[in-house]
């Protein structure tokens, strides 16, 4: 596709002092009328702090406004801008071009997700599996009486699940998972990690119902412990560990 060079100095959103340039290759695909994806190439300037998302937005602003990308917070909180960056699932807003150590940056939509257009993918399966494992505290006494205190936890009890509460539902773990690529019914590392997050919460009483949901022919046992989910998580969540700990409950090593 088109080869475009340079961003006009007066129009860039960042200062051009001591700036370098890279070749940004963006995957373009519209399932409504394209047979396969193609790459558009742009030469963009960047600073030490420029993120891949900022480079894509510069391309949208100056060269091609039709590039489809989903983003919102720009600070790795909303989980919207997950994409394949140089072959690895990453958040575009959390990946600096300078840390990629490459003169060519290739951005593609996340693997294992249906493409809406260009870099934007459908999240329905992720949200469905997330909802399936009941991602909320289950208790009989959900309403606090006026004379009761909050559901207190010790620091040790919080430590059991707190890292899993950092999940931002960006889908990078599901994108990296090899089982997700072949098993369309697999519940996925994101939902399994969230199942552990609530099972390990001392306030929750829904352990049995959650374990029943994931103890399925396409549930927790289809994880092969590749560990790629934990490698790519931008928030430091370790879904692979959560899955192994959940298996401990099902095998009777934990209660």
């Amino acid at each position, binding site marked *: 596709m088109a080869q475009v060079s340079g961003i006009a100095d007066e129009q860039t959103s960042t200062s051009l002092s001591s700036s370098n340039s890279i070749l940004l290759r963006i995957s373009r695909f519209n399932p409504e009328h394209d047979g396969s994806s193609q790459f558009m190439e742009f030469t963009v300037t960047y600073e030490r702090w420029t993120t891949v998302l900022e480079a894509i937005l510069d391309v949208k602003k100056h060269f091609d406004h039709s590039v489809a990308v989903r983003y919102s917070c720009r600070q790795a909180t909303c989980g919207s801008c997950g994409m394949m960056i140089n072959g690895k699932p990453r958040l575009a807003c959390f990946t600096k071009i300078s840390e990629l150590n490459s003169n060519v940056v290739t951005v593609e939509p996340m693997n294992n997700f249906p493409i809406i257009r260009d870099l934007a993918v459908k999240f329905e399966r992720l949200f469905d599996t997330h909802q399936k494992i009941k991602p909320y505290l289950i208790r009989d006494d959900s309403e606090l009486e006026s004379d009761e205190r909050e559901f207190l936890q010790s620091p040790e009890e919080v430590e059991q699940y707190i890292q899993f509460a950092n999940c931002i539902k960006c889908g990078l773990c599901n994108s990296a998972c090899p*089982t997700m690529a*072949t*098993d*369309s*019914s*697999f519940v996925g590392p994101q939902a399994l990690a969230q199942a552990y997050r609530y099972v390990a919460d001392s306030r929750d009483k829904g352990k049995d119902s959650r374990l029943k949901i994931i*103890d*399925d*022919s*396409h*549930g927790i*046992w*289809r994880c092969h412990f590749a560990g790629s989910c934990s490698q790519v998580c931008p928030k430091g969540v370790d879904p692979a560990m959560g899955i192994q700990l959940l298996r401990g409950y*099902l*095998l009777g090593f934990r209660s």
Partner: protein
Amino acid sequence: MKESTIMKIHYGTALAAVALVAVHILMRLTQGFAESLEYESVLANYRFIPYAAMLELILILLAVHGFNGLRVILLELKQGRTYEKAVSYGCLAAMIALITYGSRTIIMTNMGMV
């Protein structure tokens, strides 16, 4: 059957098979390799009931473990209600067929039919 129960059987059969196959290999080492595979030597093994029982157990353990492994691989390759039922029942039938065939050999030997 719950998937966790199936997987407990899967892991259990793997561990037991490793132990029994180790015993089986040690037993084979008591003879030379070529001698161990001679027709009369094999028949003698089948007629020695404790050893034949161990071979039968190894056959069951490996058949259960192997065909469940195959079922898992096939379930990950393709999905669909009919396909998954066919895979599960097909693997169960193949497992029973293999165990039956292997048991038949040992039984026939002990009944003097070989």
